[in-house]
């Protein structure tokens, strides 16, 4: 079954001269895989995820999702995306926002489904409060809820654990692990390596737009204390090589 195929993708911006943020990236992620995309800040993780969900387009190369392209409406109906620090319509309530998203997916009677999702992300108590009154953790969980509303086949999460307190992180991690149990394909951007090690089947490490490693967390950690140690070593090696 088709999953995510990225072939020779390069993304170049022309601001302040030509600047490539992703360089010749090739990745194949089969269905049912939880893929962790790691890299330091500015490595090209968010640029890659934006191209995967159709917010931007590759300068070169191709992206295939579920056998189509990110611009296909039929493909978009089967993916979920949670951006980094999601921003909402502040004057709507959490429930109203999810109703709005459900209508975009043309769900006829979404109320029961919305209630279930709100409970699963622990927002049932705040569903009728305006979003502008939500805490950072609540916004992250609402971001996750809107990404799950269509029961997606592929879920893209951009730094879903970023900025959360330990309790909030544990809650969101629990939800992601439950999705993994259900066999969802998850593309997961993060720089919190302990969580990635726990959640992901396969990881890719990107630095300065170049994919420098691609393997299971266990394989990458061989000969190192843990994944974090391996990550630092791989980045240092790659920078020496390209210096």
């Amino acid at each position, binding site marked *: 079954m088709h999953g995510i195929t990225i072939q020779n993708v390069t993304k170049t911006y022309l601001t302040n001269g030509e600047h490539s943020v992703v360089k010749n990236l090739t990745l194949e992620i089969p269905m049912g895989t939880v893929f962790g995309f790691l890299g330091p800040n500015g490595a090209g993780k968010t640029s890659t995820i*934006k191209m995967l*969900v*159709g*917010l*931007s*387009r590759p300068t070169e190369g191709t992206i295939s999702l579920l056998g189509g392209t*990110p611009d296909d*409406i*039929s493909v*978009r*109906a089967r*993916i979920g*995306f949670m*951006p980094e620090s*999601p*921003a*909402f*319509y502040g*004057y*709507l309530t959490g429930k*109203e926002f999810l109703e*709005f*998203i459900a*209508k*975009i*997916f*043309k769900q006829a009677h979404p109320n029961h489904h919305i209630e279930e999702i709100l409970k699963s992300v622990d927002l049932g108590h705040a569903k009728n409060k305006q979003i502008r009154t939500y805490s950072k953790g609540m916004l992250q969980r609402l*971001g996750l809820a*809107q990404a799950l509303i269509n029961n997606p086949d592929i879920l*893209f999460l951009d730094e879903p654990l970023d900025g959360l307190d330990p309790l909030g992180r544990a809650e969101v991690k629990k939800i992601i692990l439950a999705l993994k149990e259900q066999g969802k394909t998850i593309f997961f951007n993060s720089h919190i390596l302990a969580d990635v090690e726990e959640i992901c089947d396969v990881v890719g490490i990107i630095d300065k737009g170049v994919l420098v490693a691609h393997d299971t967390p266990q394989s990458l950690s061989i000969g190192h204390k843990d994944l974090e140690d391996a990550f630092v070593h791989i980045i240092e090696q790659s920078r020496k090589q390209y210096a």
Partner: protein
Amino acid sequence: MLNTIFTIAQNTFRETMRDRILLAALAVVLIIIAFTLFIASISIEQDVRMIVDFGTSAIYILQIFVAIFIGSMLMYKEVEQKTFFLILPKPIRRYEIILGKALGLTATTFTVTLLSTLALFAILLTKGATLFVVPILLSVFLSTLEAMILILISIVFSGFTSPILSAIYTIVFFLAGHAGESLRPLIMFPQSTVIEVVARGIYYLLPNLEKFNIRNDIVFGDIPNATSIIFSLLYALFYASLLFFVASVTFKKKEF
């Protein structure tokens, strides 16, 4: 497709109608309309005309405020605060978002117009001046069409510039749209071919927003005929379609 556009429009309407800035602007206009009673009391035999003049002008300013400032802020929130990141990856086409946003904000403009017009009617009722009901309705209908055009202009500009610049450009468009008639002498009696071509180009490119202004006329009892009203409606729809096309092309190419 229509369902999706309606969903975006409904959401835009709900979001903007709860906006405190809009509610504050509406409150100010309602106060101004109430204040016309005082202005009328100090004018001799012109009290009703004063109420109509001040009232329709206040409603018009509210409409322009909603179109330019709430319109620019609306797109600012989507682009700069990245609420678009939650919407664009969904099964929705970008032109559906543009049309939904424009219709939602037009519905908001229509609602605040309706509320303030009802307030104006209530004031006129205290004076027993029911003769002005139809002219006022025609006047606010035409100015709502103008607001619709300005909403689309602010959306077009916000597709490729910052919200502040978008608001400034829309204001320039608004002022130029009302000053278009002053170009006529340059076309009718040109000093040179270059001036004539440039003046003619600007004249036909910019919307003639004066077509939607009958506020002065109705104060003196002049009502435009049905043909003129229908022509203004068709003109607004033509110009709005053109702007919608430009906005759709701009947003289709836009990367986030």
